[in-house]
């Protein structure tokens, strides 16, 4: 396995800064805009984005958190129930523009579940998606409105974002198998 660091802390912060400006620009003045982070790492990212938007625009956006584990589509497969982190949205979504925030966009299944979870909480005017990394390989027709970094990956690669709030450091890693030689290939 090969592990490569794509971003350090400064890189992540720069990317977030650009995302914040893009959101502020697209949603002029940020009236009636709320940020909702998807557990786990989308939550600290949403808080950081809110702080950056407040610095740039002087508007304090409400921040909520969404736990999608009760909305997953893979419950029937064997395994253990994922740890719940809880949903906390202490404001009304009625008529709001919700910007969902997640760390890595991959198959799109998390976002699908997040949309289901979100509409159970209220009826926003519109929902947008901001991600720090888009690594491709979508399995559903889902796209992000704001992307920090588009990363070209192989399906079997592992993209790991680590954040100070959850993991003690800020870094983005790409991990994957070395390019295969015919000898390494295992028979199916």
């Amino acid at each position, binding site marked *: 396995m090969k592990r490569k660091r794509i971003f350090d802390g400064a890189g992540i912060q720069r990317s977030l800064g650009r995302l914040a400006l893009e959101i502020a620009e697209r949603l002029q003045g940020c009236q009636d805009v709320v940020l909702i982070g998807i557990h*786990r790492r989308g939550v600290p990212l949403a808080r950081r984005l809110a702080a950056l938007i407040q610095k740039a625009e002087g508007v304090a956006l409400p921040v909520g958190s969404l*736990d999608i*584990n*009760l*909305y*997953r589509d*893979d*419950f*029937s*497969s*064997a*395994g*253990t*129930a*994922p*740890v*719940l*982190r*809880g*949903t*906390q949205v202490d404001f009304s979504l009625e008529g709001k523009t919700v910007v969902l925030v*997640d*760390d*890595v*966009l*991959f*198959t799109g*299944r*998390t976002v699908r579940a997040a949309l*289901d*979870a979100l509409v*159970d*909480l209220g009826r926003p005017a519109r929902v947008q998606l901001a991600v720090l990394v888009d690594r491709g390989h979508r399995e559903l027709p889902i796209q992000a409105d704001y992307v920090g970094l588009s990363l070209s990956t192989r399906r079997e690669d*592992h993209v790991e974002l680590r954040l100070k709030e959850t993991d003690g450091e800020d870094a983005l890693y790409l991990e994957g198998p070395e390019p295969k030689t015919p000898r390494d290939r295992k028979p199916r």
Partner: protein
Amino acid sequence: MAMHHKDLVGIETLSPEEITLILDTAEKMAEVSHRPLKKVPALRGKLVVNLFFENSTRTRSSFEIAEKRLSADTLNFSASASSLSKGESLVDTVLNLERMQPDAYVMRHSSPGACQLIRPFTKAVLVNAGDGAHEHPTQALLDALTIRQKKGGFRGLKVLIAGDIAHSRVVRSNVFLLKKMGADVTLCGPATLLPPHLDSLGVKVTTDFDRALDGQDVVMMLRIQLERQKKGLFPSLLEYYKYYGLTEERLRRADREVIVMHPGPINRGVEIASEVADGPYSVILDQVENGVSVRMAILYLLLGGGDDETSHS
């Protein structure tokens, strides 16, 4: 961290980590019950059979609400309206139900060990909703959630459980749980309602209710089943109240921040005075509310198997 058991038959076999996981999960479930739309799809398409061979309004409604909030399909099977009244055995009932592909059974039965009896005959998840005087694990878990919310934890906490110790499954489950979590437990009741060998559970035992109350952080009162009096286990309800009823005056002996609990239904003026049951120290109705969250947590943890977080973004 995950549950290491397929079923929830009792607290006795759970680890402190599993208990903490259940309580943490229940804490998160509470939010669902406070939404305008009180339902999540977590257990969509799962069939839960509620097998209640003994009357129970509170526990059954609580389980049923928990199942519905998680979108499970439910089938209520009660003894009086079932083939059991036609003489079918418990095992035969389960063998028949089994062919309807249930994913879980929630069972209340008057015989201790009823869950263990049917265990070999089913692939489904088994949740004990009370088996005779053996265990009532979800009651102990909802009690624990209430205690943790009010007191922050269990280590060194002084807990008194008082009343009909001998006939209570709630006591056994609570003692197992509280001891595992490091609480200091005292049991109290008239000698006729105290079974022998209680000290082997690692608890203090006394018949002196007034002294037992001194400095307690939690006082858990048990329901006196009125039919026990007919068996001569205590002379009269009034006399029981005089010696073992929790009154405001008695409660002053406990810690200033004491909480008063009761698994319900309460007998006002028998084991507990109305002023206490309705008073500021009482958390009896919080227990009822936590019951739904705890049962949602159990069903989610035992039935909600999925892949781990990383494979799904």
